[in-house]
């Protein structure tokens, strides 16, 4: 007996759906890895707002941070984890399903 096709709405992720977090995921999915300051600039948010959202995504296991020293200053680079990438794509599929329904 075959199992029923998965419902795209199952991929709807409340952690990702918050606008700034969706934008962070969109940026990291495209760029692969981005410096904290670059993400901040691209999204037009303050460092504290970005930091708050990155913490939520990191706690969910969706984003990982890497520290690198540049010009004697520590810079933080952000990237999506594999589960983060999968969750983001599943969330996009859910949004498309909502639009299409």
């Amino acid at each position, binding site marked *: 007996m075959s199992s029923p096709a998965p419902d795209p*709405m199952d991929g*709807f992720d*409340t*952690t*990702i*759906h*918050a*606008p*700034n977090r*969706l*934008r962070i*995921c*969109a*940026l990291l*999915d*495209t*760029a*692969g*890895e*981005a*410096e904290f*300051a*670059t*993400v901040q*600039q*691209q*999204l037009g948010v303050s460092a504290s707002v970005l930091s708050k959202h990155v913490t*939520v995504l990191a706690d969910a296991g969706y984003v990982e941070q890497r520290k690198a020293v*540049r010009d004697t200053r520590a810079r933080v680079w952000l*990237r999506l984890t594999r589960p983060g990438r999968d969750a983001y794509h599943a969330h*996009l599929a859910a*949004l*498309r399903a*909502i*639009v299409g*329904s």
Partner: protein
Amino acid sequence: METNGDAIRPTAQEALAALSDAEQVKASATALAATPWPRWFAAALTLYTAAVPPVYGGTLARHDWLLPQGTWSVIMVVMTAAYLSLFVVAASNWRKKTGVALRFDVLPRNVTLPLVIGLPVVLLGSALVFRATREPLWLFAASAVGAATSIAFHLVFVRLHRKAS
């Protein structure tokens, strides 16, 4: 105020707006990732690409061609080492400037795949043809193809970056 998205599913309109927002961020990140190399490195890459066929041809020649074979081999090693050093510097500067990771999959695969396979075949294959025929024209033709491809790719990135910005 932004919430944690507590289990309220969006309407079709809200979902469309979210998708459009994500698409906008994606376009802006694509523009960053498509930032072209600085001109000095694009020039170095073009020179290196153009130099490979005659230098590799010299190392593979059955008899000495213009220079002793050993000299061609030394030139090949030195210019490759110089090119790789410049690449490391350029890549590091590029990352600092753009703030994103260097990716080689910015262009569509149907563009990059023929290049990744075709260019080495042309550049290195011309040396083998030269070895078999002793006709240096093959080397210079491959050299011209390599240089033209390098310049064309640089211009594609300049255009893509401008278009996406």
